[in-house]
């Protein structure tokens, strides 16, 4: 048989894709369940409108960090003493694929209201640069 090798490879590929599909469905369902429980907890301990111990002064602050291949600049918006939004102004030196991963940290930072989050595996340079930029912006926002 001339094409046996190809047929075997095709079958294995389909098997791998199939098991990945099954895995993905199960994992996604589980993640959804976890998110639902997490949301319930969040409602009960909602963030105070303006905490007395708010660390930051309201305003928009710019910060800079060095990523994979150049400067990363961000604007951090503080509202009611909390980290409200983080906008990336510049990231031209970053590889798209890697930067997209690093950007995932932004949600975590806004949610936890502090920049002490883990860098993203596989995107060390970009996420370190992004974190550096956010931290330098927050330094300017700290109440003195």
């Amino acid at each position: 048989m001339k094409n046996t090798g190809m047929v075997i490879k095709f079958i294995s590929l389909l098997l791998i894709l199939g098991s990945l599909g099954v895995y993905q469905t199960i994992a996604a369902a589980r993640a959804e369940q976890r998110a639902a429980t997490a949301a319930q907890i969040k409602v009960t301990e909602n963030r105070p409108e303006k905490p007395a111990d708010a660390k930051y002064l309201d305003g928009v602050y710019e910060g800079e960090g060095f990523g994979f291949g150049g400067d990363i600049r961000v604007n951090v918006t503080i509202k009611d003493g909390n980290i409200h939004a983080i906008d990336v102004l510049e990231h031209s030196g970053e590889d798209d694929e890697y930067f997209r991963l690093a950007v995932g940290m932004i949600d975590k930072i806004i949610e936890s209201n502090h920049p002490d989050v883990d860098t993203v595996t596989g995107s060390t340079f970009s996420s370190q640069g992004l974190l550096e930029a956010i931290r330098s912006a927050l330094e300017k926002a700290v109440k003195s």
Partner: protein
Amino acid sequence: MNNKKNSMIKDWTEIIIRLLFFITMPAAFSSGFLAVKLMFTAIGSAEPINLDSMWVLIFLVGFTILFGRFFCGFICAFGTLGDAVYAASGFVQRKLLKRKKQLSIPEKPAMILQKLKYIILFLIVVLCALGVYSNFSGWSPWDVFSRLMIFRLPGEGYLAGCVLLILILIGMAFQKRFFCQFLCPMGAVFSLLPILPFSRIHRNQDSCIKGCNACKKNCPVHIKLGENMLHDGECISCEKCRMICPKKNLIKPESKLFRNDTLCLLIKAALFFVFGTLTGLCRFG
């Protein structure tokens, strides 16, 4: 005469295609392999796989099934680097050291070394699944390479990666496609993929010149065309066999369709460029 002109056009097309991708997509292979690593990191921690970061891999795998390992042969910056280093080393050995034949690894050990890449792939995947890969990120020679490609020195903690890169460069000088056939974990993934018959090379052995074997001798990855089909996954679609065959006995169904090899190369390169840019491989995108 006409033949000579044709192969010169094909040579120059290859050089231009490879230079273009070397400049625009130097990190394509590490982006593709990053997706493999992320997939296993997610599985290791029982998280769903982030599909956004998988598009590159889906594209590379799909392209390879359709057109063979065109990516390895013409696009990958590490392959181009290897060919350039090997050519430079050949030049030095012939012109300065007056050697007649360039030093290289004999075929038998080379065929065994080709299995090494599967072990490397397996190790990296296991480290990712265990969640400890990030402890080894300073070891990656291609992180160092992509850093150098954008004219930045690799940071601290990349000593192991630098040493490995230098060792690989030395290996590249003495063996065609040293990294691609022995070490590349992405190549290991590709060589396990099925490739449609449409894009595979068929050898018309009946009309071969007796004892010619030019195609086998010119193959950088030791493929014996028409003898061992199972080994065909190693083919990197570099077309070196087709360029050297004196009787044009190596047939690719796709070039029958277009009747022009150079046109085929250009179409595939253009397709890759468009879809590669869409999936974020182009560094200027």
